């Protein structure tokens, strides 16, 4: 019998999704700090983008073509490039969303056993994916187009086309995303049990992205410091850009519509792409969904591993450290947010150092590398150690299981701190070596930065672990994985940023004052940062162990 679309069911399914999504905003569960922080970051990114993209646009549209300025041509090129980037990001987001809604959604298994037609389920999922993409599209399109409208004279049609562009772009990216979602899912399932390959791949991609980011930041620096960017766009480069832009479909058509060139061809092109995309989306997502429903009913993949005997006797402490390591390393999201970030951290400090060192020297006229390195090390170290804010919560119900085992409370907590410190020490050491070997720091400054960075890392780990223990919330998921940050995580991000800004900022300001007054107290930096690190470490340790034994015995939190 042919399955009919049940609109009432679709409404019910959408309502369910809405209730689940808004659950996090209910009074008890609302992560106020995280919400404000996210809003602040988005607002800050948008402001930075509007300022720098506007400035870049001014430079780019004034680049001469055959001795004359051609604003519509340059604007078309710029919009084609920007919209290609927007489409790429939206496609990545669409792939992730399709995978999340179809392959990894908890409800699929339940729905598979209920009298819910695949078609109705499919439409409800598609609507959710589309709405998600629509928000992304609206933010991106409006930010870009408002900036363009501020910095150049645009026709009224530019504003008219902005609205349909917001609605059309998600359809295209969902279609491209749906084509790529299946191979992506197959790849991620393949990598699911190849933990080392997964780790290398994810770390390399993240490192590459950060390198790209540093190049953009470098461009921004050039833009701030002088005219070298203007000379960058010479004739050869401009013709290469024009050549590349001529292949940037469908972004080029959108740019044409905005700039008022080739309306008919571009309009028809967009309509044709839209039609193909709609068919592709419907066919492929429906196919994927049916496959996912079947696979959820049939069961999940099994991992066949080599036969091994029981290991030799280790101490309970190291058994707990190994358990902690495996839990993080074998959970892709944990592995990325801790181990990969810790590996990339030295590169992040180095990239930022390479940009900000000359920037500060040019702007202030003084060389403050140790202070700058300290600030960056503390900042990125704090962001890396934010992961420790789930040191207890990520154990889930296993926290109780470990509690019933013959481990003292100190063994349980110190094993967690030990692993985090191992990661911190390696990360801080690599940072110090990198900065010293690239000539930003002399060896004793590098050693000092390593010690202070490690001590502040200890502070973050201790505070995060104890704070999480006091406010532990276990996941209700079968695998106990924490997928969303909460108040604890957000509070610790703010705390980490505050410490890095206060300590890093204090030594920076004091160094500037010393240099300006030709004072001979250059070692004050070391004294202040070192003293703060030692005192904070002692206080953090005391905070960690304060009445810990009693609290551990009395623990019945995490909503058991």
């Amino acid at each position, binding site marked *: 019998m042919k399955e009919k679309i049940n609109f009432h069911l679709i409404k019910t399914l959408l309502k369910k999704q809405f209730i689940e999504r808004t659950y996090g905003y209910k009074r008890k569960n609302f992560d106020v700090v995280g919400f404000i922080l996210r809003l602040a970051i988005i607002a800050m990114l948008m402001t930075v983008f509007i300022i720098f993209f506007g400035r870049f646009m001014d430079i780019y549209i004034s680049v001469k073509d055959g001795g004359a300025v051609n604003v519509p041509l340059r604007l078309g090129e710029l919009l084609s490039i920007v919209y290609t980037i927007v489409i790429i990001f939206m496609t990545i987001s669409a792939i992730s969303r399709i995978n999340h809604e179809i392959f990894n959604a908890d409800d699929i298994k339940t729905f598979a056993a209920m009298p819910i037609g695949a078609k109705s389920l499919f439409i409800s999922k598609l609507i959710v994916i589309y709405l998600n993409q629509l928000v992304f599209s609206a933010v991106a399109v409006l930010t870009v187009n408002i900036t363009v409208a501020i910095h150049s004279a645009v026709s009224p049609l530019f504003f008219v086309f902005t609205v349909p562009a917001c609605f059309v772009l998600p359809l295209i990216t969902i279609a491209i995303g749906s084509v790529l979602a299946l191979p992506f899912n197959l790849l991620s399932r393949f990598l699911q*049990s190849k933990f080392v390959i997964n780790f290398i791949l994810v770390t390399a991609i993240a490192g590459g992205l950060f390198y790209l980011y540093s190049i953009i930041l470098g461009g921004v620096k050039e833009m701030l410091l002088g005219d070298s960017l203007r000379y960058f766009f010479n004739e050869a480069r401009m013709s290469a850009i024009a050549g590349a832009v001529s292949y940037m479909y469908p972004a080029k058509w959108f740019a044409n519509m905005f700039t008022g060139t080739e309306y008919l061809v571009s309009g028809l092109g967009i309509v044709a792409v839209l039609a193909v995309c709609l068919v592709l989306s419907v066919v492929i997502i429906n196919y994927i969904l049916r496959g996912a429903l079947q696979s959820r009913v049939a069961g*999940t*993949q*099994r*991992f*066949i*591993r*080599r*036969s*091994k*005997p*029981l*290991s*030799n*006797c*280790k*101490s*309970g402490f*190291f*058994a707990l450290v*190994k*358990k902690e390591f*495996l*839990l993080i390393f*074998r*959970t892709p999201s944990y592995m990325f947010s801790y181990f990969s970030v810790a590996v990339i951290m030295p590169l992040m400090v180095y990239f930022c150092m390479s940009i900000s060192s000359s920037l500060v020297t040019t702007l202030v006229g003084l060389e403050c590398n140790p202070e700058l390195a300290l600030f960056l090390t503390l900042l990125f170290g704090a962001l890396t150690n934010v992961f420790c804010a789930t040191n207890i919560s990520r154990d*889930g*119900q*296993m926290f*109780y*299981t470990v*509690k*019933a*085992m*013959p*481990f*003292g409370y100190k063994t349980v907590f110190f094993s967690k701190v030990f692993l985090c410190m191992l990661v911190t020490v390696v990360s801080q050491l690599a940072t110090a070596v990198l900065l010293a070997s690239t000539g930003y720091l002399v060896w004793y400054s590098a050693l000092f930065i390593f010690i202070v960075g490690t001590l502040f890392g200890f502070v973050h780990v201790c505070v995060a672990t104890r704070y999480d223990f006091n406010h532990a919330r276990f996941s209700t998921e079968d*695998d*106990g994985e924490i997928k969303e940050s909460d108040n604890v995580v957000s509070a610790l991000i703010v705390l980490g940023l505050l410490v890095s800004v206060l300590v890093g900022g204090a030594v920076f300001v004091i160094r500037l004052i010393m240099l300006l007054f030709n004072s001979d107290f250059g070692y004050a930096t070391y004294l202040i940062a070192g003293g703060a690190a030692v005192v904070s470490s002692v206080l953090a340790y005391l905070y960690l162990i304060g009445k810990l034994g009693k609290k551990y*015995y*009395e*623990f*019945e939190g995490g909503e*058991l």
Partner: protein
Amino acid sequence: MRKPEKYSERYEMQSTTPQEVVRVNGLYKKYSGSSVYAVENVTFSCYEGEIVGLLGHNGAGKSTTLKCIEGMLPFSGGEIYINGHDIKKDPVKAKQSMGFVTDNHAVFIKMTGIQYLSFMADAYKVPTKRRAERLKKLEEVFCLGDAVNNLISSYSHGMRQKICMMGSLIHMPKLWIMDEPMTGLDPRTMRAVQNFMHEYVAMGNCIIFSSHALHTVARICDRVVLIRKGKQISDLNVKAMVEDPSFDFEEFFLEGEREAAEEALNDRAGLSAVQTEDDQ
């Protein structure tokens, strides 16, 4: 007419044996944020060579009692001794001689079966030379096969139950505690586990487990501690009960449940009578 003798009166536990493994004395447990006791004045002891069942309806307090014995949950009053060690004052030593299987099969799913067993062996300090032999013995009972090398996240419900049981037995504890142990096991493993339980206590060990499966309890247990609404109702000699051909375990259990329902009804009636008088 003479009131018929109740099962609970006929088989009330009269004597004790000296080798005490567990002593629960006047246990009280109230969850934080709750005004009522989840467990109230529960007292019983378990001895070497005994299998003791904790029996009760859903929410009776069986799991809470077991979690207090295991040291998972703090308790408001009373004392618990495991092999002479106070679970509050000397928790590490008390837990060292105990193995447990929880009702939610909480296990490290990111480990392979063999890694989990190695972890448990390390946690309970099992000497290296004993490990292979123990694993072989447990494999004979639980038959996990090659799956022991797979990630636990790929295990079925029953397989997780098996690996939990294997992990809890790797150090051959004096006391083996299980919360709903037979749930999810296939009939072959269920029978193998039951036989193993008898062998295990014959070696001088002790087992406490909770269950709803009355026939399993009747077949396996030496004694049953009956809990209702957090309160201990009786401590019964099951072996003597099942030897009586007229004994019906299901009827025995329901007899108690009916009594509780009647009491609740009477209490409510009494309350409304008082209320009516007050109103008048």
